[in-house]
């Protein structure tokens, strides 16, 4: 071997050794993802089987689409699917614009210290678990000695006050409003950062041209935000079927289950409480496939609009 070949060989050995290290470092993460993420995907096969705890994954007999037929025939599943769509769409329609509106409003606050204080306050609920928020809802809306009841009584209201937390007619509103309350402030971090990046000379030029505040808001602030808004919207639409298990599980109760039960909470009840593993897996698979399809479609659209964006 010539000297050049030797040094090449040495370099190869060195980089092979390096790569070996890299793969070795990846190993724990890969093991994790295979065991806790991909093994369950293999477990989806029980949606097409009649799973028996005694026979296990592989020995349980195949039944084709029987579980799905049974599932779609169940009134509780249809109800959960309906609720899932309604709640998911409501959260999208109201939850998406809220942080934009809040950011535009915050942007109009002149005093920086006030602006920061308000933003700090409205982001706070984002860090609180739904279980605790359930407790706060109870403290605010409870009919025995809740804050709102007390205030209404103080102002002399003697009529009946509905228990919003146990009332089918109002519970969807509770779901939506508590969701807006918790998550409304969070995305203002992104929008305000984008607004801060807008060239200030645009506003100065507009003022000289005699543009009013509203015109500036429309033509400068909002049109500068448009790419951010469009991207976040597309991503958000992809997640529309995610109606929020954490929230529903934490704040709903048996009195309102008919308007609050979503697919994921239904999967929990069917699987963990009724022990119908196969049907529950089928229900979960159904919603996950819809979710995956939506994400792929919206991601495709996002990439068409802006090749740099998108998830991957």
């Amino acid at each position: 071997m010539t000297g050049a070949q030797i040094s090449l060989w040495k370099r190869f050995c060195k980089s092979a050794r390096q790569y070996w290290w890299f793969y070795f470092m990846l190993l724990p993460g890969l093991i994790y993802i295979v065991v806790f993420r991909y093994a369950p995907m293999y477990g989806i096969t029980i949606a097409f089987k009649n799973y028996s705890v005694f026979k296990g994954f592989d020995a349980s007999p195949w039944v084709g689409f029987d579980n799905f037929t049974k599932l779609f025939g169940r009134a509780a599943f249809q109800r959960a699917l309906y609720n899932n769509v309604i709640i998911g769409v409501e959260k999208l329609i109201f939850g998406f614009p809220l942080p934009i509106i809040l950011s535009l409003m915050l942007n109009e606050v002149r005093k920086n210290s006030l602006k920061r204080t308000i933003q700090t306050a409205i982001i706070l609920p984002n860090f609180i678990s739904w279980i605790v928020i359930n407790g706060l809802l109870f403290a605010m809306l409870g009919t025995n000695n809740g804050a709102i009841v007390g205030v209404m009584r103080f102002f002399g209201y003697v009529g009946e006050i509905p228990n919003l937390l146990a009332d089918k007619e109002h519970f969807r509103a509770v779901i939506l409003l508590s969701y807006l309350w918790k998550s409304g402030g969070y995305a203002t971090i992104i929008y305000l950062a984008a607004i801060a990046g807008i060239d200030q000379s645009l506003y100065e030029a507009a003022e000289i041209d005699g543009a009013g505040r509203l015109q500036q808001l429309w033509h400068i602030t909002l049109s500068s935000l448009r790419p951010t808004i469009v991207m976040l919207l597309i991503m958000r639409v992809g997640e529309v079927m995610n109606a929020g298990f954490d929230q529903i599980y934490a704040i709903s109760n048996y009195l309102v289950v008919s308007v609050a039960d979503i697919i994921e909470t239904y999967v929990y009840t069917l699987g963990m409480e009724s022990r119908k593993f196969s049907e529950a897996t089928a229900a979960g698979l159904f919603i996950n496939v819809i979710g995956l399809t939506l994400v792929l479609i919206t991601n495709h659209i996002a990439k068409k609009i802006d090749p740099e964006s998108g998830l991957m």
Partner: protein
Amino acid sequence: MLFVSRRKRIQRSVPERVGNAVIVLILLLFAFSTTYPFWHVLMYSISDSGQAMSGGLFFLPRDPTLVSYDVLFRTKQIFIAYGNTIWKTLIGTVLSLALSALTAFPLAHRKLPGRNLLSMVFFFTMLFSGGMIPTYLVVQQLGMIDTPWALILPNVLSAYNMFIIRNYFQQLPSSLEESAFIDGATPPVVLWRIVLPISAPILAANAMFYGVGNWNSYLDCILYTNSNTLQTLQVYLRNLISSVGSMDSIAGVGGATASLSEETIKMTAISVSVIPVLVAYPFLQRYYASGITVGAVKG
């Protein structure tokens, strides 16, 4: 007047000033709604139960007393639940962070053969999952049900957080790493000595993501454990709030609690589980914000 700045020279008209006041008012109302409930619960918990019965707003405690805290902390379960949440948060966060950084580092190495395929393997789990029941069955097959492992391992790595770290690693100047490699350093040494020390901001942000997630999570505890010895604070709180007569179980241990209402006990339990988050909030907010902004950069 000629010398004032241009911004001030343009006089705000009356409707504009009214509009501004309305905006500030609306924002203040929203800010009040997101902060007052916490204050309410804290004040209620240290108020005398009889006085608190009438409800309404609590700007100050009524007949302050700590008797409900005394009663709550005389039960054993609150310490078990608190302890479980604390070790779950500490160990879970450290493990998650270590595993995320360890995984992110090779995936950030652009020359690594198979890097794209490996990234896809992790990325796909963000799009699709086996779902609750198959995951439960896997955890069951592993014999983890009712073990402390079940509270940590099933969700120890978030692909999303890992990619945020990877994106950050990719932005670092590659010359630093390369010169270390030329000096014969191995990848783990480079990660530990060179990359991690300059990645403090993103690690802090991710520690917050994982920490808050661990503290607030409850589904793993509900799904994978049955025994009270593994109960976490969130599940303890949920059971306490949603059950009528929870008072009896607590009063049974606490003794004389005739003057203590179930509501006061519930408010106390809520306070006890939310105070640590409120104390940590200023830090959380700072690092969260930086985490989101960095995470938004695609790699």
